[in-house]
């Protein structure tokens, strides 16, 4: 019996006959394979879950009619996955334009011409799977990326390619800009509640871990773009900037979808991108949201509107997406990498020195960039591990449920007692008695312990921190050990949906302005809550974290 495994990579003399009929890259097999995988992922999510009898094993179709409870919105980033997603959705569920190329899904070929699906296609209808007109929503981010070109028109052209003038079928295109997150005008167009007068100029002080809300006083930004630049430039690390941009885009898409009574928001995240997002997100403290949502997300908006956020390409690798786009001749508008540093004023109005500093800081890396490079290298050499990462997430769960309403900034599930957890696992101040006694060296950017300031003794009841998830709180308050973060005296503006969610007490005129916090600190400190820290024994530490420890096998 041969002991050879036949793998020519390990044995030079091994002969492994290539069976061309099994080549996945042969287009005759490739298109039906990818299309089937796509519909198998999306199909079971279409109907209202209450009436869903489960997916049919063949092509993901469920038994009976597919009827979504609302309309469809596709989030488009300009990237490869979004382009392929739009093509797959259009060809699988809507009328296919004669200008696009590619093959029909295999299932349709087996259906008769009078089958409702085929008949609806011929009439240029949507097939009545989703209500209303489908839409593609694109968020332009070029305004914060130095040297980036705007791609809104390219994405518009890509969407328009699926229109059919003969039948009048069109996919709506909704262009947004990242600064819309700070625009009351946009907020009103998506049906947002009017901002209370007192909430309009509210911001937060990110130098204080409690993130107290303050009035912006005379420093209030004049335009949404200025607010966006102030927001991003105030964040402490490149990782925080990347995370904040992703969160803003996500929530912009959600509220836009909600305004169209959408039941589904589709995102073009491929298996490779999903793995990157998972590793990167968990490294930033977003594990709770990822795990609690699993691979299916749901967002509940006003009036209990339920939107399913689906990633139908999650079983399709980035390589397969690239082949689909190439063989279908799909133009990919492209997507710029998020910046590692953002100017505090809109591009074009900054000083030369500021421009140089921002450009130099683009070389700073972030967790997202490091993860992307790692996963790309992993996929090249060990492709199966990429899918393993995604599948592992489906196997884990959380011990507790998230707080009602979720995180007010990113709109994702938030674990309870984030602040208490942080307090029990981290050094809160370099003035901590335990830290001083340990004689641990200070980070290189401190030559002496920094001033205790107000942060050691304040805990305003109107702080934003209790309403944030771990990841968002870290985004605002993390400090790089390399000292890249700079002390920021600016009150950071808030996205409109955060302002709208602040309680009515935000109208209270006793909410301090930023200057009060800087000059009246002694009285505030005297009256504020006092924190006391002490070193815990091993037993008490174990009591605190015992809920998170795995049970020993013998205890069961």
């Amino acid at each position, binding site marked *: 019996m041969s002991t050879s495994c036949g793998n020519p990579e390990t044995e030079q003399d091994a002969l492994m006959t290539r069976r061309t009929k099994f080549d996945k890259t042969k287009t005759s097999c490739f298109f039906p394979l990818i299309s089937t995988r796509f519909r198998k992922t999306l199909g079971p999510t279409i109907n209202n879950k209450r009436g869903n009898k489960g997916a049919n094993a063949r092509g993901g179709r469920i038994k009976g009619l597919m009827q979504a409870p609302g309309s469809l919105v596709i989030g488009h980033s300009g990237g490869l996955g979004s382009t392929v*997603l739009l093509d797959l959705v259009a060809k699988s569920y809507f009328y296919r334009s004669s200008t696009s190329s590619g093959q029909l899904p295999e299932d349709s070929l087996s259906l008769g011409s009078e089958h409702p699906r085929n008949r609806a296609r011929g009439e240029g209808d949507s097939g009545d799977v989703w209500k209303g007109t489908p839409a593609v929503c694109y968020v332009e981010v070029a305004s914060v990326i130095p040297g980036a070109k705007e791609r809104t028109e390219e994405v518009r052209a890509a969407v328009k390619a699926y229109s059919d003038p003969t039948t009048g079928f069109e996919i709506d295109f909704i262009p947004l800009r990242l600064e819309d997150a700070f625009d009351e005008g946009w907020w009103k167009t998506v049906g947002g509640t009017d901002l209370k007068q007192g909430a309009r100029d509210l911001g937060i002080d990110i130098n204080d871990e409690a993130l107290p809300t303050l009035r912006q006083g005379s420093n209030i930004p004049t335009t949404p773009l200025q607010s966006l630049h102030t927001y991003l430039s105030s964040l402490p690390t490149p990782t925080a900037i990347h995370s904040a941009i992703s969160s803003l885009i996500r929530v912009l898409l959600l509220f836009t979808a909600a305004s169209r009574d959408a039941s589904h928001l589709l995102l073009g995240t491929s298996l490779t991108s999903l793995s990157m997002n998972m590793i990167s997100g968990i490294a930033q403290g977003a594990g709770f949201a990822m795990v609690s949502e699993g691979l299916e997300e749901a967002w509940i908006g006003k009036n209990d509107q339920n939107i399913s956020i689906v990633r139908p390409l999650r079983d399709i690798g980035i390589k397969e997406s690239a082949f689909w786009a190439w063989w279908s001749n799909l133009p990919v508008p492209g997507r710029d990498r998020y910046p590692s540093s953002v100017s505090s004023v809109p591009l074009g109005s900054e000083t030369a020195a500021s421009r140089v500093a921002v450009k130099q800081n683009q070389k700073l890396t972030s967790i997202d960039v490091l993860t992307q490079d790692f996963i790309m290298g992993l996929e090249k050499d060990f492709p199966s591990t990429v899918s393993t990462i995604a599948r592992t997430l489906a196997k884990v769960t959380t011990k507790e449920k998230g707080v009602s309403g979720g995180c007010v900034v990113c709109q994702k599930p938030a674990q309870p007692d984030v602040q208490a957890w942080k307090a029990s696992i981290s050094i809160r101040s370099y003035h901590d008695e335990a830290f001083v006694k340990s004689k641990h060296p200070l980070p290189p950017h401190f030559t002496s312990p920094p001033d205790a300031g107000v942060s050691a003794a304040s805990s305003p009841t109107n702080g934003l921190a209790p309403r944030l998830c771990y990841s968002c709180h870290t985004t605002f308050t993390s400090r790089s050990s390399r000292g890249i973060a700079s002390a920021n005296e600016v009150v950071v503006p808030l996205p409109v949906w955060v302002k709208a969610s602040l309680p009515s007490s935000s109208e209270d005129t006793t909410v301090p302005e930023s200057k009060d916090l800087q000059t009246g600190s002694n009285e505030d400190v005297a009256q504020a809550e006092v924190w006391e820290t002490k070193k815990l024994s091993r037993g008490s530490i174990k009591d605190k974290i015992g809920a998170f420890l795995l049970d020993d096998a013998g205890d069961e």
Partner: protein
Amino acid sequence: MASAEASSVTIKVEFSGGLELLFSNQRSHTLTLPAAVPTDNATTVPVSSTTEATKPADITYLIHYLRDHLLKERAELFEENGTVRPGILVLINDTDWELEGEGDYVVKEGDEVVFISTLHGG
């Protein structure tokens, strides 16, 4: 058609997924490569088959050639450690290069090689 002595090989190279931006914003290129190239993939030295070690022109040589002669900027976005950067797919006559031996594939007259960048995610 190959020349009688096969001293050169003409191939078509295409770029997609944003890679064309690094190559004068031109998606399609027609290149003529020497049939025999130095084993160290040096692209600037004329090959003297009588004195130097040579090999048939392969994809690895093509990558070096593109980097040295066509690439206009940011070489690190295309080539890394003698091969394409992770995230760049290579198709040889519409077939994944992994099935054709990757960099060791010997280019033939009329071959079409496509480089697709996947580095702009979802």
